[in-house]
């Protein structure tokens, strides 16, 4: 076992433990924050595997955008500070979910463990090489992805404005939770 393996095991252990906490905690905002720690530790794993750029992008996008969005949504949907048991399904369904989760993990392990190889040394893909490939070989998927992002943006806008017409007729009590906070120009 080399130093790299040890570092990977440490980060991986943090990622798994925090992931477990994220899916079991009964406090909703804590779940999002455990997800942050888990994904941060995952970025540490990527660093150990020599993928520095992926690690930084992971933290930038997940912590800077995705988790902030999730926290935002949790606050907008009036999540209390106190623990809530009703955020999870009942014990019977939980056992079923645990069995399914364990089964999928076991399935993946059964497929992956037989093909484990010990690398003499890790291959580090430099950012230059990656960028050349990204804008060479992968350029069409990349363009497709940008179209996907654009349509996701438009869709998110469209969905979040869906009830605007009815708002003018009825006094908007349901949507008043977020609009003044966001500072959307209602007035």
């Amino acid at each position, binding site marked *: 076992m080399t130093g790299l393996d040890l570092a990977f095991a440490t980060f991986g252990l943090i990622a798994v433990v925090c992931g477990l906490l994220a899916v079991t905690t009964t*406090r909703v*905002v*804590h779940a999002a*924050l455990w997800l*942050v720690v888990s994904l941060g530790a995952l970025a540490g794993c990527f660093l150990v595997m020599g993928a*520095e*750029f992926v690690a*930084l*992008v992971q*933290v*930038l996008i997940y*912590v*800077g*955008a995705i*988790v*902030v*969005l999730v*926290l*935002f949504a949790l*606050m*907008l949907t009036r999540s209390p*500070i106190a623990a809530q048991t009703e955020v999870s399904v009942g014990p019977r369904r939980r056992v079923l979910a645990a069995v399914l989760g364990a089964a999928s993990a076991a399935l993946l392990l059964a497929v992956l463990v037989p093909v484990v190889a010990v690398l003499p040394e890790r291959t580090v893909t430099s*950012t230059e090489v990656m960028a050349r490939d990204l804008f060479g070989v992968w350029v069409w998927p990349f363009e497709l992805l940008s179209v996907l992002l654009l349509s996701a943006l438009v869709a998110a806008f469209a969905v979040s404005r869906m009830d605007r017409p009815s708002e003018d007729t009825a006094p908007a009590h349901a949507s008043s939770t977020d609009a003044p*906070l*966001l*500072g*959307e*120009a209602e007035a």
Partner: protein
Amino acid sequence: MSALEIVLRSAAVLAAFLVLPLLVGQMEHKVMGHMQGRLGPMYAGGYHGWAQLIADGVKFLQKEDLTPAAADRWLYRIAPAIALVPYLVAMAVVPVHPGWVGAEVPASALLVLVASGISVLGMLIGGWASANKYSLIGAMRSAAQLLAYELPLVLSVASVCLAAGTLNLTGIIEAWSPAWLLWQLPAALVFLCAAVAELNRPPFDTPIADSEIVMGPFTEYGGLRFAFFLLAEYAGIVLFSLLFAVLFLGGWRGPGDAYLGFLWTALKGLPIAFLIIWMRVAWPRVRADQLQRLAWLGLVPVALGQLALTAVVVVSR
């Protein structure tokens, strides 16, 4: 790199991290005082109240460490650290002199952006965990602001990285030429604007807004934890001023930079810090919806246009 060198480098970064924000804080006291036609704190320490910040620090230390009964205790307590520590990490990768950088990281420009994003999470958590309506409103505003201004910030840095052909801050300084002052000017303005918004400094301080939502996320905070949030704000000013100098003004480049590089960095960074303080005195707070409008309709299109311009110039060069 030997163990001694690592210790020395860490100590140097920590010292800079502790001293420079205090200098900026003192500068804010004095600059604001003079601009508003008043003296500002004059007594502590004798000469022009130089020790006022130290006295403030001692005062913060003596205050009782209160946690509201309804708060999420654990999160409430670690939030100031989450706001402060990322700036320490970011400070370690900013080059100040040829060969002087706390830690040489290949993609340091990206790392600084990552750190500043994490820091805002501290405010968000602190505001939510305080169990206070004003704090919650402040936290939500700061989340909305982060989402809106992170994009132009990243785009303007991306433009510089594209022009330099590297993600490394040292590499960017080496690739810098005076022409950048002109054709990277839109990116520089967008960066400055977005940095002030990211720091929640006036005129973009709607998340804090002491006169409407009572300091927002910090309403419940007092004593040392509040001081940590203040320190994070000043550390942020230092970091973004240095970063502006490095990205757009050529960092340590200048006559005799082999010996005077750190002086050039300071000379370029200081006016930016001054400018950020000046903005606080000169402009009133913009409303939260004006803030969003400025980001999405003003800064993002400008940053995208700059990125396109940079790409065209780089490709045709």
